[in-house]
């Protein structure tokens, strides 16, 4: 085997290349114009400083980019979400998870007051909160159940020890009743009466028959 020192050096350099030539990590927010990106980064930085998770805020910005929204709109929506999360932090205290932050912030978007959120503070109740907040948001936004009625019902269940499976079970049955023609409010009250604190929830079928999409949003593309 005959090798020149230069060829040896070249071969060693080629062997080392894969280590350094990893795919560069591109920040998706780079698609924003510099001013908007700076504003979004500033909001994310503020969130981190306040101990608020920035992942849901970044995801909101990414959703706006995916929807080809105006950069000003994206900044405004991210700022609104950040403000909602700040309110959620004050209302629910510091002992909540990132998921609970995001669920509570989206509830504020749906018109639930911070005073209502405050009642979900986990000082006396150790139950997880995400499932309750998610189902509450759906009952208000999709089924149009009055906010106060839906909030008090879900709050009562949560305080009595209902967990995620209980709330999803309730959601499934109420949804089924509404599809069969009952009014949303009556369906909710009827199904809540079936809840017995401390009893294991019935199995919720994970393979619920899929319905065709309703009122789809048509995009321009």
């Amino acid at each position, binding site marked *: *085997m*005959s*090798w*020149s*020192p230069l060829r040896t050096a070249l071969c060693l350099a080629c*062997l*080392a290349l*894969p*280590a*350094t030539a990893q795919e560069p*990590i591109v920040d998706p927010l780079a698609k924003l114009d510099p001013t908007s990106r700076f504003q979004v980064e500033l909001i994310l930085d503020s969130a981190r400083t306040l101990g608020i998770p920035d*992942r*849901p805020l970044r*995801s909101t910005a990414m*959703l*706006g980019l*995916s*929807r080809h*929204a105006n950069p000003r709109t994206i900044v405004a*929506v991210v700022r*609104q*979400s950040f403000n909602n999360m700040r309110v959620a932090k004050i209302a629910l205290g510091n002992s909540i*998870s990132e*998921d*609970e932050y*995001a*669920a509570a912030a989206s*509830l504020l*978007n*749906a018109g639930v007051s911070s005073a209502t959120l405050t009642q979900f503070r*986990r000082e006396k109740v150790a139950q*997880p*909160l*995400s*499932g309750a907040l*998610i189902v509450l*948001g759906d009952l208000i*936004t*999709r089924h149009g159940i009055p906010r106060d009625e839906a909030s008090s019902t879900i709050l009562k269940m949560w305080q009595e020890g209902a*967990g*995620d*499976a209980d709330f*999803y079970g309730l*959601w*499934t049955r109420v*949804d089924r009743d509404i599809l069969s023609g009952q009014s949303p409010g009556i369906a909710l009250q009827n199904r809540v009466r079936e809840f017995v604190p401390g009893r294991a929830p019935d199995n*919720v*079928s*994970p*393979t*619920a028959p*899929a*319905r065709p*999409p*309703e009122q*789809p*949003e*048509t*995009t321009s*593309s």
Partner: protein
Amino acid sequence: MIEDELDPYVEWIAREARRPVQVDAAARARLMSAVRAEPRPRRRRLDVGRLFEPRSFTLSPMMSLATAAGLVGIGVLLGFGTYRGGRSLANSSSKGVASQPPGQQEAVRTTDTVRIVNFVVLAPNASKVSLVGDFNEWKEGEHLMTRAPNGDAWSIAIPLTPGRHVYAFVINGENGTQWVADPTAPLAPGDAFGVPNSVVLVGGSSS
């Protein structure tokens, strides 16, 4: 032998060593002329050509294998160190709570941190359906769904970390592109960009 007896002998040796050597003047001149006749030594310069001259060396098969393995190991270690700066799916802990929201079937629990979630939507007239969400930065086409062979349902199974995820379906068909929420899952309130999204809670609440 004692030291006093040694001294005269040592002194004699030193005296003989100090005596100048008588050199013949002619011999000295011959020597110096011979030295001057020699060319002056030149300073060695870097010979670039020598870098390109082939060299030969021998390497046993075992030694070459060991060298190759060492180089690969260094590359892997350096590459791993670089990649750690990138994204990682399994970066959150699981509470192990089995929560199965309707519409999404948790088929397999792969590790403590990632679960496979099956998404299904009915779209009879669609030519292409994508799943978008916070888990793929809402990139259309990143998770393309596949049509069931004998039906109108489209499905995809993807690994998700435990927790709350927001998502939607992007349906391409005769009516253009439609962004639709999952009709079998709770709606995410606050569709700020004019599109409805759904929520899935994988593995129960984290607290």
